[in-house]
């Protein structure tokens, strides 16, 4: 098969009545990659996954699995097992019978079924639960049963539909590492649908960000984080500061942008823009310096009022507002914040080095 992608979505559209859940989707998924599809609810991510699983038929376009068109192939004839958000374990079967289910449906004999199921249960460290009733398992154990049940046929691809959303925060992180390790060991393709940025960014090789049935951006997690391609992506990730303005002049290597919050400096003249064009700048919140006095000349600085703080683990997000009402945020460690002793209502300078600003490409 060589470099042929495992899955290809070729101009795929899915309509429910008048509503297009997925519109003109083009996406290739490579063999062995961990792809996360991310977006808010109703963005089309689950529909995309369900089309791949054969639970929805595309209205237009073609889906290919290993080069072969699968638009009309019923779900039970594809080997595209899915881990469901609800897990969808069979309550009238015990753990082992749940795991054996797909082998039984494929007509594999009892002894072989038992051996392979036991193998997978051991692999997921739930071997001793084989004869247990599903109702008597904890959330994490059920998760492992669902994984074993999907992987027992040794498929080329595993589909996961928000599988961790029902778990508490601690277990979520543990299962994330179980999933990531599993994917690395098996070397098969994982397609992981989620609305959680931390899940997508911590596990995936590539992240697809969807909105209203369309792909906003595809890329490696860090690439999307540092260089969002659209304003939607920058806002959706929620970690960047966004400034809209007009490009005033491109002096030498640098350039300047007039925004309602003031004149901002860019390290390089943005490609594809001319003087007078509207531009949108994104500055990651963790690149922001907060200072009580005006920072060095050459850096950008906007005077702003502290609106509040939010603590998440070792970092805090400081919310600020410029005189013109532009909202800004800075992610800082507690150690950094102790140096300036932040109080709500205090005036501070929000600064950053020109090279840390990212100009969104022309629409």
């Amino acid at each position, binding site marked *: 098969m060589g470099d042929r992608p495992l899955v290809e979505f070729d101009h795929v559209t899915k309509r429910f009545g008048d509503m297009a859940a997925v519109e003109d989707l083009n996406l290739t998924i490579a063999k062995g990659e961990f792809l996360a599809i991310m977006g808010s609810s109703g963005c089309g991510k689950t529909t995309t996954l369900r089309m791949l*699983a*054969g*639970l929805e038929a595309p209205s237009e376009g073609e889906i290919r699995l290993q080069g072969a068109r699968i638009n009309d192939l*019923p*779900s*039970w004839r594809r*080997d*595209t*097992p*899915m881990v*469901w*958000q*609800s897990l*969808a374990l*069979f*309550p*009238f*079967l*015990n753990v082992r*019978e749940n795991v054996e*289910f*797909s082998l*039984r*449906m*494929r007509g594999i004999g009892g002894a072989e079924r038992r051996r392979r199921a036991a193998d997978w249960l051991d692999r997921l460290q739930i071997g001793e639960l084989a*004869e*247990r*009733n599903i*109702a*008597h398992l904890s959330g994490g154990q059920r998760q492992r049963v669902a994984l074993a*049940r*999907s992987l027992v*046929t040794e498929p080329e691809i595993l589909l996961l539909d928000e599988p961790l959303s029902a778990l508490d925060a601690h277990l979520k992180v543990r299962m994330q590492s179980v999933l990531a390790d599993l994917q690395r060991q098996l070397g098969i393709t994982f397609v992981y649908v989620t609305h959680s940025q931390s899940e997508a960014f911590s596990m995936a090789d590539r992240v697809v960000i969807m909105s209203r049935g369309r792909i906003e951006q595809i890329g490696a997690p860090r690439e999307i984080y540092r260089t969002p391609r659209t304003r939607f992506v920058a806002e959706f990730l929620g970690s960047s500061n966004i400034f809209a303005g007009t490009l005033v002049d491109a002096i030498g290597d640098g350039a300047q942008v007039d925004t309602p919050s003031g004149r901002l400096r860019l390290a390089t003249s943005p490609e594809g823009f001319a003087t007078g064009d509207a531009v949108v700048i994104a500055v990651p919140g963790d690149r922001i310096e907060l200072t009580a006095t005006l920072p060095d000349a050459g850096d950008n600085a906007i005077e702003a009022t502290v609106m509040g703080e939010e603590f998440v683990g070792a970092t805090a997000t400081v919310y600020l507002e410029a005189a013109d009402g532009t909202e800004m945020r800075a992610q800082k460690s507690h150690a950094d914040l102790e140096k300036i002793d932040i109080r709500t209502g205090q005036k501070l300078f929000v600064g950053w080095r020109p090279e840390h600003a990212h100009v969104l490409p022309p629409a």
Partner: protein
Amino acid sequence: MSELNRNPLIDWLLRLYVLASFAFIFAPIAASFVFSLNEDRFPSLPLGGFSTQWYEAVATDPLVWEGLSNTLTIGVIVSLVATALGFGAAYTDYRYRFFGKTVYLALALLPPTIPVIILGLAMLAFLSRVGLSGQSLSVIVAHVVMTAPFAMAIIRLRLSQMDPDLEAAAWNLGASEWAAMRHVILPFARPAILAALFITMAVSFDEFAVAWFVSGLNETLPVRVLGFLQGQVSPRINAIGTFVFLTSMTLVILAQLVLMRRPKEGNPDG
């Protein structure tokens, strides 16, 4: 539960109320049972001696045996057919969205709301027109119409408790639609299907009015009872009544038991 916010007077009144309701419902049946074992010809107090003579009289009456055998045969066939139909209707409701579904559901659940006299008359008129009146088959047809909605209601309730992803999960794991039906839907609905079998049999077993209209010479037991009553008042009726009551109660209690059963640990073979 906390005792803090409970008024003992209300507790006692509620208990009394429940007790009174049961007494009211079961007193006539209990009286019938008591008199069936009384040697007196007429039900009167004080009771005469204990006797099983009325049961013996019933047991030696060939008409009673014929009625019982008709009732049982019809009951078994009706429960099988009605449960199959009820399952089909309930599954259709569970699985598909289609135009006119509300009307379909209303029609499917309609028969028990029709007064039995009207249903009986209509059945008689219709079945005689198609040449089916006065046979066991007529009673079967009529009873299936009457009981299938009960089966549907019970199975529908069970299917509504099913994780909507379960069937799709089976397809996703390689089960064709038929295999998913056999290995997922039917096992999940099994308690409700058993309950539906018992309930429909109980309803058919007891049903009098429609059977009276359409049965002709193939009388069921309840129709036979009316025959007795029209002839002469006899404690034999108490004996039959007790038997019919116990049978129906057994079926209904069985239905309750299968519906309430908890999942058991380590099911050895699914």
